[in-house]
Each structure stands twice: as C-alpha cells, then as structure tokens.
C-alpha cells in the first residue's frame, strides 16, 4: 500500500511542476506614489484571496476581519459534490469531484503616500470559478484510508479599487483625488491534495477524524494589471473532527442524523498582511437526511443537510451557514 502512495506522489508533484513554468513575473504597479504597498503585497493579497476561496476542502464562510490597519469582509461559497466510486478488481477506489466556487472580499485600509498624504483605499475583489477533482482512495483497513487527488480549477478575479486622497490623472487627462480602478485576471490553479481519514462507530454514533494537506499552484494572467501576471505556490493544512448520531426522524423510510464538528484550517504560505489571518477555527452543528440515492447508477449520494458553524480566529469573527451534500 505505502509503495503505491509513494509512487503516486511524485506523479502528482510532476503534474504540478508541469503547470508551474508558464508565466514570468512582471512588476509594474498601475498606482504611482504608493510605495508602501509593494507589487508583492498586491500579488500576495490577490493570490491569498483566490486560494482561500477556491481551495478544495474549504466550506463556505462569512468572515469579518479587523486588524490594527485594515477592516475587511470576506465570504466564500461553493456548490459541488464529490464521491468515491468502486473500481472492481482493485483494492483502491476512485474519487471525483466537481464544484462551482465563488467569493468576495471588501478590504478598507489607509496608507501614507510617497507625497505624505493620507490615502484611503477600498479594495473589492470578486472571484468565480469551477473546479474538478480526480484521484484515488486507498483503504488501509476498515477504519482508515488515504485519499490523494488532483484538482484543476479556473477562475476569474475582478478587483475594483477606490483610491481616495491621492492625486491621479483620470482617463480624460484631468487630475482627480478620487480614482476607481477596475481590473480583471484569469487564474488557473492546480492542487494536489492528500486526505487521511479515520472513522469509528460507537453504537449508532460515528466519529470521523480527517487531516488534509493541499499543495496549490496558481497561475494568474491579467491584461489590465501587469502586477497580476504572476504565479505562486501555497500550502494549506486542515484538521476536521466530526461526530454524528441518529435521530428519531424518518422521511420516506430514511433516517435523519445530527452531527457536530470542529475544523481548523491553516494557510501555511500566507503572511498575516495578505488577508489579516492565516488560520481559521470553526465549530458547528448540522442535520442530514440520508436519502441514499445512486445518480446514473454510478456513485452513491448518501445525504443532504444543513449546517451552521461559528468561525473564529485572532482578528476574525464569522459564521458558516449552508447546505451539505455527502
């Protein structure tokens, strides 16, 4: 078993490396006189936002971030499904997933320009994209399995920046202290993921522990802002604990089950300046109806449900309320 995993990982890394040699970095900010914000800051912030919105394994979230020098609101959401499928005559199963992902960020902060003026910036980013995943699931025993998979995603990032307090020349040639910049970037991301999942039953209750690691490569191309002609690697680690049990509710002959969960997500590659946080902690509860259908007679769709979670971290408060499909 471990030989197979060991042989599979270099293939994953090789595939990631193939996507890694596309775009060269060009640094030329479209906003002069703001050297306190480097091109690197802009890139890191954009990549961090896209990654925290589109990385596999992240659930929806609405976040308020307050730090000493910035105040931002972020949400992310995804509509998708993933499932394992049996590959007969092999011990391993297949794994696939498809998702539409989206997110938005409004970030307000002040800086001092090179000319000594106080400048207020209101940056709004919106991203929408699609993601497909394909991989394998290796059951080590009844309780424990490893699931490596590769995800490919494309997304479009729109950034609207309102700059207040810095004299710039508008397109008509007149100087203005209130300027709006509207830029777009197309992003392609490749993510290699390894999930380790342990589960055990205690009578009618089930405990599930999951640890996940993502290695993500993002390539960004922008015709509007050369700073966003860039690429970046980043890593995410996740730990999830979920405990579920059956209820007395039955609909159409099938059970409802309650669950409580705790998640911790650590964005290993981002510094705090990018989004105001590098990790999130979530605790929540939900209920699921085990409808147990088999679409196209191909894969099992066990349940649909709703969940509510509270998200917290240093400088972050938020929540997660949404639908689940397992």
């Amino acid at each position, binding site marked *: 078993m471990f030989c197979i995993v060991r042989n599979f990982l270099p293939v994953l890394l090789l595939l990631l490396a193939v996507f890694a040699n596309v775009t060269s970095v060009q640094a030329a900010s479209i906003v002069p006189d703001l050297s306190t914000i480097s091109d690197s800051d802009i890139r890191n912030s954009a990549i961090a936002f896209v990654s925290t919105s589109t990385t596999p394994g992240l659930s929806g979230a609405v976040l308020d971030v307050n730090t000493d020098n910035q105040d931002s609101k972020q949400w992310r959401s995804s509509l998708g499904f993933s499932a394992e499928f049996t590959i*007969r005559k092999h*011990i391993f199963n297949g794994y696939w997933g498809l998702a539409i992902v989206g997110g938005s960020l409004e970030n307000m902060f002040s800086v001092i320009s090179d000319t000594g003026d106080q400048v207020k910036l209101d940056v709004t980013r919106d991203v929408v994209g699609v993601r497909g995943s394909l991989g394998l699931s290796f059951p080590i*025993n*009844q309780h424990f399995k490893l699931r490596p998979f590769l995800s490919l995603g494309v997304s479009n990032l729109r950034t609207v920046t309102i700059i207040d307090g810095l004299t710039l020349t508008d397109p008509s040639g007149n100087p203005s202290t209130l300027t709006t910049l509207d830029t777009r970037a197309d992003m392609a991301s490749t993510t290699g993921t390894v999930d380790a999942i342990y589960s055990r039953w205690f009578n009618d209750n089930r405990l599930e522990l999951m640890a996940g690691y993502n290695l993500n490569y993002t390539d960004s191309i922008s015709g509007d802002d050369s700073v966003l002609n860039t690429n970046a690697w980043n890593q995410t680690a996740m730990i999830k604990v979920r405990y579920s049990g059956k209820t007395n509710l039955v609909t159409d002959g*099938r059970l409802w089950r309650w669950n409580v969960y705790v998640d911790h997500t650590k964005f290993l590659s981002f510094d705090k300046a990018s989004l105001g946080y590098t990790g999130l902690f979530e605790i929540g509860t939900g209920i699921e109806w085990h409808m*147990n*259908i088999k*679409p196209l007679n191909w894969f099992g769709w066990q349940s649909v449900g709703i969940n509510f979670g509270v998200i917290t971290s240093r400088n972050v408060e938020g929540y997660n309320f949404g639908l689940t499909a397992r």
Partner: protein
Amino acid sequence: MNMRIILFISSSLLLGSCVQAPIFKDADHALITSNYPIISINGVGIEDTYKLDLDTGENTLVIVYHTYSKDYHCTFTWTAEAATAYEVTDQENRYPLTLYRWIRKNSLWAVRLNPIDPLACSIVSRE
C-alpha cells in the same frame, strides 16, 4: 461546432448512463449486484463474481471487502423476494459492507433502501 461536440458527448454520456431496470432470470428469481466479490453462496464456494441470480427465500452470501492490511469476509443472510434487486456496497457504515434493496426510481437515479448489516465480518490478514 465545439459546443455541438460538447453537447453530443454530454448527451451520449448521460444517455449511456441512464438507470436501466434490472433484468431477472424469471419472475421467481431475485438479483444481487455487489461492488465487491461474492465468494460463496449458501455455503458453496464460487469463483469471484459481482452479479448473481438468486432463488427467492433465505440466502446466505459471503462477500469480501479488501483493504491493504486486511480482508473482511462479510456474511449476509436474508430473505430474498422475487423480482427484487439487491446491492451490496461500502457506505462508511458500522460494518465494511451493507446490503440494500435497490430500486430504480427513474432514468436518472436509483434508491438504496432497507439496509441490512452482515451477520459478521471475519477478518483475514493479508500476507
């Protein structure tokens, strides 16, 4: 042009994947499909198979769930009804495998109902 090709491929995949009604040997038989190999029926060992016609009445099957460290030989005993389809799969339940009554709901999906746990799953270590 490209859109036509995509639509053609999507339609072909969808139509090819439609849920078909089960075909029974005759009105007095049941049918079972399994995602894992069936190795024994009513105490008689058979070559690994994934689909079987069953006599109605009580049947006992042994089905193997393979993992990289152990094999689980799960024994199911239940009363099979005539013209009824059954399916055995892994669903992250208490036992490695679960037996369901399989019902075609429409051309897009089937439903797994009335789960039955195995009587026991004996563990065999892999060498």
